[in-house]
Structures are given as structure tokens and as C-alpha cells.
């Protein structure tokens, strides 16, 4: 647990991402980026790409391998597929965040819950719509394994993995310093089939400081 000294009033950018919506935005090297879980227990599915060359992007496997730990928290450096530091987590009042659970999708909901769940809103559609404008130079092949801020996906020594009730609460936040110019893509998770959003998706706030 590490608190930030940055005042929300001093932020150069602030926006609320409603439940189930997406958000895509550039964050410049040296800027600080905060995500606030406004009402608690809200999974925030997040991807990062290098502005300079979007074939360089956040890599979940490289990030956990580099720190030899599956959980993300203060001190974690988010590593790209080219093994460069993209962002560093500099404050975190939640404690840990997941990067193994990925994003929900209509197709994986069919597998996990029922074939008839295909109609339900899912993060992967939000990601695909967020990057749909051709100017981002991103397509489905670029939508890779993401971070789930505020989500609790424990792994046991005997190799089991579960989705547990969140450990986040209202107003908990995570804050990152950008080590390169990045495009951030967020899907504020609409999943209603498991406890990742406490069965009630809620808005989150994003803030940027220069």
C-alpha cells in the first residue's frame, strides 16, 4: 500500500469512464496516470501501446517474468513485448492487481457460463471498438493479454486459479508513471457473471498529471 501526494485539483486531465464503457487516450512520458475505483470492486481491463510504434505493447508474460511475481503493485514495472519499461506503478492503495485473468469476451463467456450468454456485453468488444478508428493503427491482432486493475485472481502452489471477490473498495486507486509515450486503452468491465465487479459494474475515474 503506497499513497500518492498528488492532488486531484492539480491534475491536467480528469474524466469518468461509465460502467461498461471504454476509454482510449495518450499518456506522455513523465506524466502520472491514476485510476480510481470510485464505488469499489470494479475490474478495469487495461492495455498499453507505444505511441511511436504500436507493435510495441504491454506484455503480461514479460511483466510477470521480469519481476518473477504474478501480482502487480507499487514498484512493478510494466514491461513491453520488446522488454522495455512502459510504466511504473508508483502508488497503490488496493494492494495488488491481476494480469492473468484477461478480458471477458462473448465467446469466453459462452465457454465459462453458458452458450446462451453470447449476447452479453463484454470487454473484448469494448477493446475492439476503442481501437477501431484507423488512426490508432491497432486491430484485433493487437488486443493481447491485459491488466485487470482492482481484480483479485489468486493462484495456489498446486497450480489452481480462481476469480475471488475483490479486495478493492470505494476510492481505492492505482497510479502509474509513464516511462514512454503510450496509448492507454481501458474497458471498464461489464461482466455480470462472476464477482469481479461484485455483480454490479460501476464507474471509474482517470486522472493525468503533467
Amino acid at each position, binding site marked *: 500500500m503506497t499513497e500518492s501526494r498528488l492532488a486531484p485539483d492539480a491534475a491536467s486531465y480528469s474524466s469518468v469512464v461509465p460502467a461498461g464503457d471504454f476509454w482510449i487516450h495518450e499518456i506522455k512520458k513523465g506524466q502520472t496516470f491514476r485510476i480510481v475505483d470510485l464505488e469499489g470492486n470494479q475490474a478495469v481491463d487495461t492495455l498499453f501501446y507505444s505511441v511511436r510504434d504500436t*507493435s510495441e505493447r504491454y*506484455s*503480461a*508474460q*514479460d511483466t*510477470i*517474468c521480469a519481476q*518473477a*511475481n*504474478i*501480482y502487480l503493485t507499487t514498484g512493478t514495472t510494466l514491461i513491453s*513485448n520488446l*522488454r522495455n519499461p512502459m510504466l511504473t506503478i508508483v502508488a497503490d492503495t488496493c494492494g*495488488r492487481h491481476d494480469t*492473468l*485473468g*484477461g*478480458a471477458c*469476451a*462473448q*465467446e*469466453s463467456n*459462452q*465457454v*465459462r457460463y*453458458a*452458450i446462451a450468454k453470447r449476447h452479453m456485453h463484454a470487454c*473484448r468488444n469494448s477493446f475492439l471498438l476503442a481501437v477501431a478508428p484507423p488512426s490508432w493503427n491497432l*486491430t*484485433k*491482432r*493487437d488486443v*493481447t*493479454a491485459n491488466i485487470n486493475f482492482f481484480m483479485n*485472481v489468486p*493462484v*495456489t*502452489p498446486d*497450480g*489452481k*486459479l*480462481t*476469480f475471488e471477490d475483490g479486495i478493492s473498495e470505494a476510492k481505492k486507486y492505482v497510479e502509474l508513471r509513464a516511462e514512454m509515450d503510450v496509448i492507454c486503452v481501458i474497458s471498464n468491465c461489464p461482466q455480470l457473471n462472476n464477482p469481479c465487479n461484485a455483480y454490479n459494474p460501476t464507474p471509474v475515474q482517470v486522472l493525468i498529471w503533467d
Partner: protein
Amino acid sequence: MSTAEVCLWEDTIEAGASWALILRRGNSLRIEDPNGGANVAAMFYNFDCPVERYNMPDTLKAQHIAHLTKGFVLYSDMGRILCSITDDSCGWHDPLCSHNDAAAVASKYGASSYQTDRNAWHRNTRDNFLAEASKYGLGLRDIGQNVNFFSKVVVEESGAMIFVPGNSKAGDYVELRAEMNVLVILDTGQHPLDPNPVYDPRPVRFQVGQATPPGPDDPCRISRSENERGFINTERYFL
């Protein structure tokens, strides 16, 4: 071969080398570690539409697992099963970790070049993956998550990842059954968390065969209800 009715062809992937194989729906792939201590990094794509590919999170969360062995399946991002794991003698394969690149191999194992060492130079999995993927029109954007067959990484309660040496013994094997037409890219480079300070990748043997089709009581299908639905999605794709 336990689940293959016919062996179609077989060969060796040399130490530190890579090979992209096409498995037709119904083919089996048996990979054997003749010497022990092998690691085989693997990426999987739908050969007919490669934008559909292996998805680590969907594989893990559908089956509530952080390791792979017999009875589990490998999911694509489209809710379909690329391959089932039909047999396995070593009990644990790592789905969590990445693979080495040129910088990691140089810093861990020292300098080596083609100019001085010819074909004994230190290869790295990333460059091998890029070369093999490019032969099928894929590139850096398509190199997503990989599996590391024969390697074991245990996650402690703190989240710490511990590489377990000696997971694969001489003669150990893993056997897959392709449930779709699959492009699989295999590489025998060392595991990124293997503490061995010496460049010492191991070769593996592989056999491509014709598998017995998965029946209604197939162990991978009935291992959990999620997989029954995964098979439904996959079978609908081929109707």
C-alpha cells in the same frame, strides 16, 4: 503412441531451434524429451484464420488452472479449442512465462555469434519465433502468449514464481490432439526463469499422427462443463 492410430511423420527439433508445424484437425502431436530437462516454447494459431490464436487468460480461467497437463485444453480467443492435451508423462507444463530474446540470452549465457561459432551460436526464442511466424505472414504483432512445455513454475502465496528444475525426465512426453487446423510454432530455447547459467538447450523428438476422434466420453471434453461447451463451439465451426 497412445492416442494416435497412425504415425504420419516424425523428426527432431534440434537444441535452440524452432519449427512451425501445421496440424490438421484430428492430427496428434507427440513431443518427447529424450534427454530430460527440455523446454519447448509453443505458440498456436488457427491456420485457416490466424487472427484467432492461443489465449493464455482464456485457457487459464476457463479451467481454473495455472498449469497444464493431461485432460486440459488450449483455448483460442474465440471460445474454441485449438488443441487438447491427451497424454502427459511429466504432469506440469508452464503457461505463465514468456520466452528469451537476444538480449536475455546474451546477458545470461555470454557472447556468441554466428561469425565465431557458426551453427553452434546461441539462438534465442524470440528471433526463432519471428522467423517462423513470418514464413506464414505473421509478425511481431502476432507474437502473443506462449506455453512452455516440460517446464514447471510454481506460484507461491505471495505471487512469487519459482522455477522447479528437473521437471522433465529423460523419456518424458506430452501429446496433443488438434481440434482445429492449427499452426503451432515450437522452439527448444531455455525457459526464461531457468537458473542454469550455461547455454544448454535440449533437442526434442516429435511425431505427427492421426488421432482417435474425441468421442462423447473424451476425457478432455468431460473434464469440466466449460470444456464441453468449448467442444460445442469448436464442432459448430466445422459443420
